[in-house]
């Protein structure tokens, strides 16, 4: 079972939602559709499901053209961002509905419904109506209904977005386990880099209706093909600074001198745009080869056990993700420490020129 999208486009009312998009999803693969809102994730998913027709291009399912085929006859299951269940059916009937329509014998329906309800931990709620469930349980019901169908293509459109933090964590971990056992093509749309990394699999990075990079999720994280990918596939977005490579090393912004070490050593002389992840910057010196950059605190947000410090200086505005809770006053002078070994270098066209080597075992984890 494979799904091939061949030069797909979708234009709605003069607005281009998807543009000339080609994609091949391998059988049994987990594919993460990744991109900011309005990148075209939902549009793409609706085309895959057959809910919308592409304005151009073809959709091939196992080698047959299914472009114009109705969603009813396709081998697909879908979970929406909103909790969509049949309000007048009990949880049991909700989950059983695709099986009943498939005409399965009663005993088998019963077995399958109970099995998938058990996987989603809602086996105690089968007699209830969706309105009597919490949001998390409603979404579990929707996921169970999608799983029970055992469709060849399982689409999940940001299924965890409307859940609170704790539930999301919990369900996310369970989903990863379920997908591992799944033999069908799973497509999972998300806007969160963390979620994409947790799920792993293959990532498809979308931006303004185009695919800007595909590849194994972890690899794309370490080797973002362009500045754009680096920005979206990083939370907070990749910190950027203009720089120049000359005979004396690397010059960042207005006069921050950094040695051209490691992967930066081979860079030809010229102008670049450098990127650094927020968690690779620090307000404390972590390594001997860290370079101090003076700046002032614009804002310090405490989130959980981390502090996001917005540091502004001459020619740059960075966000430093710092372990621990720190209270820093507005306008306070601070030194941000940057490590040249952790810098991404992008060319003038935004393409990746050099990426830091991937951390090996024994080195500090991401």
């Amino acid at each position, binding site marked *: 079972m494979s799904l091939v999208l061949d030069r797909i486009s979708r234009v709605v009312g003069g607005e281009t939602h998807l543009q000339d998009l080609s994609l091949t999803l391998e059988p049994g693969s987990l594919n993460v559709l990744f991109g900011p809102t309005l990148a075209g994730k939902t549009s793409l998913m609706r085309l895959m*499901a057959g*809910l919308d027709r592409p304005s151009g291009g073809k959709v091939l399912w196992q080698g047959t053209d299914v472009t114009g085929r109705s969603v*009813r006859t396709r081998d697909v299951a*879908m979970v929406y961002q*909103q909790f*969509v*269940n049949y309000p007048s059916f009990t949880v049991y009937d909700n989950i059983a509905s695709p099986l009943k329509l498939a005409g399965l014998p009663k005993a088998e329906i019963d077995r399958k419904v109970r099995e998938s309800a058990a996987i989603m931990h809602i086996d105690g709620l089968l007699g209830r109506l969706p309105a009597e469930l919490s949001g998390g349980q409603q979404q579990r019901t929707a996921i169970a209904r999608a799983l029970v169908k055992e469709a060849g293509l399982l689409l999940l459109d940001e299924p965890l977005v409307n859940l609170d933090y704790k539930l999301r964590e919990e369900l996310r971990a369970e989903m990863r386990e379920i997908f591992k056992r799944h033999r069908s093509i799973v497509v999972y749309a998300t806007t969160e880099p963390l979620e994409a990394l947790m799920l792993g699999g293959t990532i498809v990075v979308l931006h303004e209706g185009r695919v800007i990079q595909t590849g194994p999720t972890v690899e794309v994280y370490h080797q973002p093909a362009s500045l754009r990918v680096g920005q979206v596939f990083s939370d907070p977005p990749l910190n950027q600074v203009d720089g120049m490579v000359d005979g004396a090393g690397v010059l960042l912004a207005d006069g921050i001198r950094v040695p051209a070490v490691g992967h930066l050593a081979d860079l030809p002389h010229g102008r670049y745009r450098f990127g650094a992840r927020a968690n690779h910057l620090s307000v404390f010196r972590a390594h001997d080869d860290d370079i101090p950059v003076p700046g002032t605190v614009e804002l310090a947000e405490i989130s959980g056990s981390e502090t996001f410090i917005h540091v502004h200086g001459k020619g740059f505005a960075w966000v430093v993700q710092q372990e621990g809770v720190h209270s820093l006053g507005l306008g306070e002078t601070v030194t941000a420490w940057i490590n040249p070994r952790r810098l991404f270098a992008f060319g003038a066209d935004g393409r990746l020129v050099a990426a830091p080597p991937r951390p090996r075992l024994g080195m500090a984890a991401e």
Partner: protein
Amino acid sequence: MNPTGVGFKKRHIGLIAYFVFLLLPIYWLLAMSVKPNQEILGGFSLFPQTITFANYVTILTDPSWYNGYLNSIQYVALNTVISLSVALPAAYAFSRYRFLGDKHMFFWLLTNRMAPPAVFLLPFFQLYSTFGLIDTHIAVALAHCLFNVPLAVWILEGFMSGVPREIDETAYIDGYGFPRFFLTIFLPLIRAGIGVTAFFCFMFSWVELLLARTLTSVDAKPIAATMTRTVSAAGMDWGLLAAAGVLTIVPGALVIWFVRNYIAKGFALGRV
């Protein structure tokens, strides 16, 4: 002394006055229906001096009277069923699909309510005469569709648009065909809307007199037309007329009871 207490009282006085003002005609009708004619014509009495149910007995036993009710109920029910069964698919289409001129057509439907029914009286009369439909229940039921179908489409569209489109899509993904989805999943979700729509169809068809009277003569004569029978050479039978009036209010009051929680939403055409 106590400003809040005074305000409380004032508000009550206002409410009570309003209530009396509203209910007085209905009370008067009720009182008249149980008074003998001599008392009605004889003088002014707030409470009936002698109570009689003879008027009601007359209406409920005389076929020329109760047939009026049966006729009215029959064409109103017919009309409600026709209006609903036509409006449900139409409202679904307006709520879920975009097609050329959809908005204009939707608005055009409502403009049918803007012309007075009298405008349509002549064409209706001639058309129904040609097809031999005069003095049948179906004639009145069809004529009332003129203003009930647009209303039903508008109310139902409002309720249907309140149901997320994703439910439809999920059903199609699950493999439901349209008829099965519509009957088993969609209709239960807009139950209240269907109830309110039925009520509005009932209400407008029940109170409409001009078309109903013109298109019928004997066999399908509505109760309102029957009520003109009380005018005879011997004068008006006021008591009988009042009793008939009271009985005309009853079905409406009964139906209103069932949809009382949704009427406001119905008046807003389902768009609250």
